[in-house]
């Protein structure tokens, strides 16, 4: 039996929205990726940005795969395990396409911005026109490539729209340092300055947040991977 060499993910194989996320992260920072799956993002951050990136994943098979690739990942649940981290343990806490599936999204966000200086959150936008149209025209729960499970078995128990998310950030006192809407493939949509249009045409929203009541010296360097 040979010890398998760790599989190396490369950026071009990475889900494109992960590339957008990576573009928001400064080199050398401490990152926690919640719902990290097989660890593609943390591998990328470690390889290309020299980050101390770690992951939490609920699915044990994914965790095993990630650790067997040499990545620091632990089995855990966003709803219950974040409270065990100390304040300000990370520069960035990432929650990629997982917010809609947690039990208490608001509490998860609070924990993210307690244990990290900044939070990066991406989620599928329930305000997209195709979902609105399906609901209006058929009177049934929409089914799309993203929202592809029946209402009674979907893990996505807390869908929200880009506008809803702006409202939540507002009421929780989070400053949106950067945001964008993107299509399913992660190509950024051009409605960056128009939240209402983004909410209609963006298939997913991506936000870089920090706590408004805290002060931090250095703004993050935002690079644009779509360039």
């Amino acid at each position, binding site marked *: *039996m*040979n*010890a*398998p*060499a*760790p599989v190396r993910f490369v950026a071009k194989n990475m889900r494109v929205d992960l590339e957008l996320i990576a573009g928001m992260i400064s080199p050398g920072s401490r990152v926690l990726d919640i719902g990290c799956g097989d660890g593609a993002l943390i591998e990328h951050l470690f390889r290309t940005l020299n980050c*101390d990136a*770690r992951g939490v994943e609920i699915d*044990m098979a994914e*965790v*095993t795969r990630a*650790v*067997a*690739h*040499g*990545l*620091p*990942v*632990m*089995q*855990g649940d966003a709803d219950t*395990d974040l409270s*065990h*981290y*100390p304040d300000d*343990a990370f520069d960035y806490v990432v929650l990629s396409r997982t917010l809609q599936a947690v039990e208490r999204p608001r509490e998860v966000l609070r924990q993210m911005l307690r244990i990290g200086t900044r939070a990066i959150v991406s989620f599928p936008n329930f305000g997209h026109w195709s979902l609105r149209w399906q609901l209006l025209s058929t009177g049934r729960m929409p089914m799309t490539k993203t929202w592809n499970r029946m209402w009674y078995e979907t893990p996505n128990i807390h869908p929200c729209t880009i506008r809803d998310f702006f409202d939540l950030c507002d009421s929780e006192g989070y400053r949106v340092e950067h945001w964008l809407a993107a299509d399913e493939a992660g190509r950024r949509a051009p409605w960056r300055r128009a939240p209402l249009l983004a909410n209609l045409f963006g298939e997913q929203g991506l936000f870089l947040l920090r706590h408004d009541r805290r002060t931090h010296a250095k703004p993050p360097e935002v690079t644009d991977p779509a360039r």
Partner: protein
Amino acid sequence: MDQTPFPEISHRHEAFADGLLLDCGVRIAPVSIAYRTYGTLNAARTNAVLVCHALTGDQYVAEPHPLTGKPAWWGTLVGPGRPIDTDRYFVICSNVLGGCMGSTGPRSPRAPGMAEPWGIEFPPITVQDMVRAQKMLVDSLQITRLFAVVGGSMGGMQVLAWASMFPDTVFAAVPVATAPYHSAQNIAFHEVGRQAIFADPDFHDGFYASHGVIPARGLAVARMTAHITYLSEAALTRKFGRRLQGGNTKTPVLFGERFAVESYLEHQGSSFVRRFDANSYLCITRAMDFFDLAADHGGSLATAFRGSKTRFLLVSFSSDWLFPTAESRAMARALNQAAANVSFVEIVSDKGHDAFLLDEPDFHRTVAGFLAGAAEAAGLS
């Protein structure tokens, strides 16, 4: 079955004339630590992996046992091309302090030149004492940093103790199927085993050596009890079920070996007494019972690992009820609290606590990958 103890043989060891000051306040001197090594230490002395054995294990981790002739106890994990690859790493495994395979323990003479062994009067030791003894050995090999410390069960306790006592010496730590303290249930099972030994008329209050006997029956029963805790109901059912030995007679028999599981346990007990010393068993089970890492750090497990730069891999097994996943998870959370680098995996297996010693491909892949990642971070080519 023959229950005569194997003759004592000499083991490769390192002697420390100054001995060791134990947690109980007693200094024992000299101290001998028996050990084995596998693979080659690199020129920079940075590729050493210390493997810590469990309660009844010993230093023969990757080779057939010299007394029993049985295969290496962790041969699936340690060896050439194995997850702990001896072509790549220099593996050290030592017999614990208090053991009976060549390290100083109850069978050792009380003082140099004395024939009389410590026996039952061997001072109480702790898991931390075992680790200090290993540290002396590692120092004597002129290794300033261990690339990894790996162990399961009581070996895992030693790994945790290593990481908390000598954080700068441990680059990566792999505590497997273990816990930061011994639970009440585990202490209870140990106590049943100890009482069985005490109740054996051949025990002679611990001075059985001077009577030329061993408390074979008591030690065998202790082993049988413990062995049940290493398995799971599913594993016992799969292996034995309600199968009867010798014929299909439906007549109930009150005594004697009837069920397959009974003769299996009987065999486990009988073969154990040939290789293990009863006073060692008492001494080591007691050390495990007193293990409580949080209690040693003001009740906070996180404090034990504050500021740790060690990379941790915690592994538990889903059917292990002796060291259940919940205890590994609590450990992982404490390490999170200490902002340590921690990976944590529960391996799905129905083989109970024993799974850590068996062929579990997911476990082996996990250890191999973790060590490969750690080796990269450590700059080991």
